């Protein structure tokens, strides 16, 4: 592999790597706007001009780092010479002369390429004093589609968005119109930017020209707290950052993971947190429709399950929204009370497809992130409680969670499940199912807890608590640990209820997770060793579940 020196740091890169990527490897950021590693190289913004010497001989002009590819030894690149600094300063001036000074009302402020680079490379005054800035009257807030708004005044014509729709989404809704200083981006009159990945153009827009309808004016970005998380929209498990302020989730942004979602995520997933805001919240433990405290509620669960043993079937209904750790503890509870009746019903939804780099696209149909993890953790099974009168034979039915799928909101299904003599429901949502329960236990939703999900390709991925649950709501891992120790004192050491402890324990026990530990789990996740012919892992269960709910 050829070696290249960038500002006196030498790195070895694969032949054909461009100087921007080589710079990143050497820890040198070459400023750029139009270059994006997944889009064709157009060399348009001219921000990445650098000085390149080949074998000690300086190339006559500054070169764009994006379109300069290291093919052999002997290149020495400088990004910090006075000549380069002059060029960057000049380019920043060009970008800014026609850019509105509307940072105070611009969503991008705080994460804006223009702000960042003008701070680093620009000058603090304008020489564009006597001319009028170019504006696009009537094009300051054009909804390009349901989810993206264009403000043409702010556009720096990098064409990333256009190339995204052409090259990644493959839909080509956006185009570059007019010529010269009047160039614009937009859609053909009457057409909309409405592909499932549309909002990715907001992510890749280096400035505030494209903003997200959902996030517009929702929050100044510097007030956002960000935590690495996993999207729960489907079984793909797109890596995201969950961005929130004081427990109010503001947006999901895709987080780069070359194995899963690359730089992208779908608009459906981006919107998936809205349900935490739209649905009523189960806020305190409830026994027989009366609010109560946690110890009373857990005592009640313990005594009533213990009392019911022998008087009928004890069944467990899991959820594809459970973390692997929760599912594991749930399965342990089932083991302790001697129940073999378990299942993880999930809905099938629209198939979402995320394009990936040099890999086939990843697709998800199941409308839950972790059916596989829940099944691996021991909740797999084929009880068919959602149909017919199976529930009526149950002395106890424990459901986790109250929002396991559409069925939890369907009065008919709820009535069917209600036939169990004792109905215990864990969950974050005060769904009809929770309301029908004898005992309802409020637990954290996925923004409020740590955990892991196993995605459609059997990759286990960790996510972090973005903010703590409020009021009486507790993470399910904690609640289940408490409950388990009521049945068997051997579980009391776990009562601290940390997901990490549970994960390490299940990793020591379950062959699929062998060798993994919470701390050593890579940020990009780890592939599980899943025997191909695992009987419980067939997707037929999911198919059956979907047909049932359909």
């Amino acid at each position, binding site marked *: 592999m050829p070696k290249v020196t960038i500002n006196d740091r030498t790195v070895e890169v694969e032949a054909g790597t461009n100087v921007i990527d080589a710079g990143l490897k050497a820890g040198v950021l070459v400023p750029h706007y139009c270059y994006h590693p997944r889009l064709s*190289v*157009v*060399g*348009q*913004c*001219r*921000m990445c*001009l650098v000085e390149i010497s080949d074998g000690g001989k300086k190339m006559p*002009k*500054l070169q*764009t780092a994006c*379109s300069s590819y290291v093919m052999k030894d002997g290149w020495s690149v400088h990004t910090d010479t006075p000549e380069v600094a002059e*060029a960057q300063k*000049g*380019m920043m*001036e*060009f*970008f800014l*002369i*026609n850019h509105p000074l509307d940072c105070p009302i611009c969503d991008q402020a705080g994460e804006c390429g223009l702000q960042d680079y003008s701070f680093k490379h620009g000058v603090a005054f304008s*020489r*564009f004093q*006597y*001319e009028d800035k*170019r504006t696009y009257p009537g094009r300051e807030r054009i909804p390009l589609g349901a989810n993206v708004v264009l403000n043409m005044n702010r556009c*720096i*014509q990098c*064409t990333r968005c256009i190339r995204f729709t052409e090259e990644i989404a493959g839909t080509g809704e956006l185009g*570059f119109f*007019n*010529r*010269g*200083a*009047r*160039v614009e981006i937009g859609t053909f009159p009457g057409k909309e930017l409405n592909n499932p990945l549309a909002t990715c153009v907001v992510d890749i827009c280096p400035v505030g020209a494209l903003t997200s309808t959902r996030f517009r004016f929702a929050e100044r970005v510097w007030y956002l707290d960000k935590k690495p998380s996993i999207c729960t929209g489907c079984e793909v498990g797109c890596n995201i950052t969950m961005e929130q302020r004081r427990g109010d989730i503001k947006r999901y942004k895709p987080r780069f993971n070359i194995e899963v979602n690359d730089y992208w995520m779908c608009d459906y997933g981006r919107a998936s947190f809205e349900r935490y805001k739209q649905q009523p919240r189960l806020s305190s433990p409830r026994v027989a429709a009366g609010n109560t405290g946690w110890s009373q509620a857990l005592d009640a669960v313990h005594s009533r399950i213990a009392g019911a043993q022998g008087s009928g079937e004890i069944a467990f209904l899991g959820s594809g929204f459970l973390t692997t750790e929760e599912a594991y503890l749930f399965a342990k509870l089932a083991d302790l009370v001697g129940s073999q009746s378990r299942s993880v019903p999930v809905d099938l939804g629209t198939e979402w497809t995320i394009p990936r780099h040099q890999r086939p696209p990843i697709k998800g149909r199941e409308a839950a992130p972790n059916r596989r993890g829940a099944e691996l953790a021991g909740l797999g099974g084929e009880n068919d409680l959602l149909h017919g009168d199976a529930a009526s034979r149950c002395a106890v039915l424990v459901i986790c969670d109250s929002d396991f799928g559409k069925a939890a909101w369907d009065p008919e299904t709820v009535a069917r499940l209600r036939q169990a003599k004792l109905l215990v429901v864990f969950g974050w949502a005060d769904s009809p199912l929770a309301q029908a329960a004898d005992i309802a236990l409020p637990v954290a939703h996925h923004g409020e807890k740590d955990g892991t999900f196993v995605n459609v390709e059997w990759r286990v991925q960790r996510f972090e608590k973005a903010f703590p649950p409020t009021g009486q709501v507790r993470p399910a891992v904690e609640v289940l640990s408490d409950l388990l120790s009521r049945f068997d004192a051997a579980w009391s050491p776990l009562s601290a209820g940390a997901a990490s402890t549970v994960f390490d324990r299940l990793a020591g026990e379950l062959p699929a997770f062998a060798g993994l530990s919470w701390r050593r789990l890579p940020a990009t996740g780890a592939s599980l060793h899943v025997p191909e012919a695992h009987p419980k892992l067939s997707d037929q269960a999911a198919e059956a579940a979907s047909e049932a709910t359909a």
Partner: protein
Amino acid sequence: MAAFEPVLTRNVGKPEALTLKGYRQLGGYEGLTKALAMEPDAVIDEVKKSGLRGRGGAGFPAGMKWSFIPKGKDKPKYLVCNADESEPGTFKDRLLMENDPHQLIEGCAICCYAVSANTCYIYIRGEYVKSAVILEQALKEAYEAGILGDSVQGSGFKLNMYIHRGAGAYICGEETGMLESLEGKRGQPRVKPPFPAVVGAFGAPTVINNVETLCNVPHILTRGADWFKSIGTDERNTGPKLYAISGHVDRPGTYEYPIGVTFREMLDGAGGMWHGRQLKAFIPGGASAPILKPDQIDIKMDFDTVAKAGSMLGSAAVIVMDETTCMVRSVARLAKFFNHESCGQCTPCREGTNWMELVLKRLEHGEGTEGDAQKLLSICKNIGGQSLCALGDAAIGPVKSLVDRFPEEIEQHVRERACPFPQPRYFENGA
């Protein structure tokens, strides 16, 4: 010099040259016949030896360009003839196409044979409707006579030649902008490398040559590289050259001279300054070329001498301005042109050409300030060498030379808060 026999324009004014029969009678297609009897590489060598440099503006040696085309038959190869003549001041290629279409077809055919290209597109600017019609007719005749088609003059070499009309964009004269336009896209120049000789039209190796360049080729084949080299200033500046003279001269027009004729001879040839006025400035090579002053009147009009004088021969379109001309106004008009024609993809050209036009307009309207000249120079510096294609560099040529060579005129505009030149009226009493 008086003894110089026109080469490229020898058939101008002979309507019979428009027909194949007439062109043949005038000695046409001899060069192609000769080429077909040679090895392709020998044709390239002959053109290389002649020293023919591109007549479109950049002056790149044509034979060398052809030799960059990879050998081998794994990929199709193309010739794209650049007939997108749009550089202000330039009108020589139109003359060649409208008066001697077969000369161009013959030149294209020889080039295609030399580089083994089986397809040639003549990219002709959309406004040149007449040229396109005449060429279409000539192509038809050439096909019918077996000069084009499955076996060029029975040689077994297959060649298809098509007219492709542009639609009004100067930037399509830039070779990769032209390729994009040919492929049905916006004419936005490509990042280079790769160069068209490797990745050109439709991803295949492609030669792009100007009309005048290709029109020289039949004569090189017929009369030999040595004859061609005997015309001109020196080894690096050879052959006949068309000079398009416009502006304030008595008889504007296209004049053919051996390359390296002096500007004074050319000016005399065009009848001198009109109305006997004084020469104030001249642009030697189209709108992109920096402006020269009368002290350069004896300059030899070849690639290297003009470059040494701080300008460029470009397309050899000479725009002459007399003493009544306001240089600020003239350069402002050129700046407007470059702003209008910038494709808009790259930042320095998109923003810089626009800014320059605004500043120059302001100056012309008497709203200039002391710092404007320096500001213009600094904008030029920030565009120069940093734009994606050559249009950025072209746009700063006239502006920089205005500030460098006519500073007093800018100062006067600023000082007097108005243009010191009366608005010229060219027609008396509106007649």
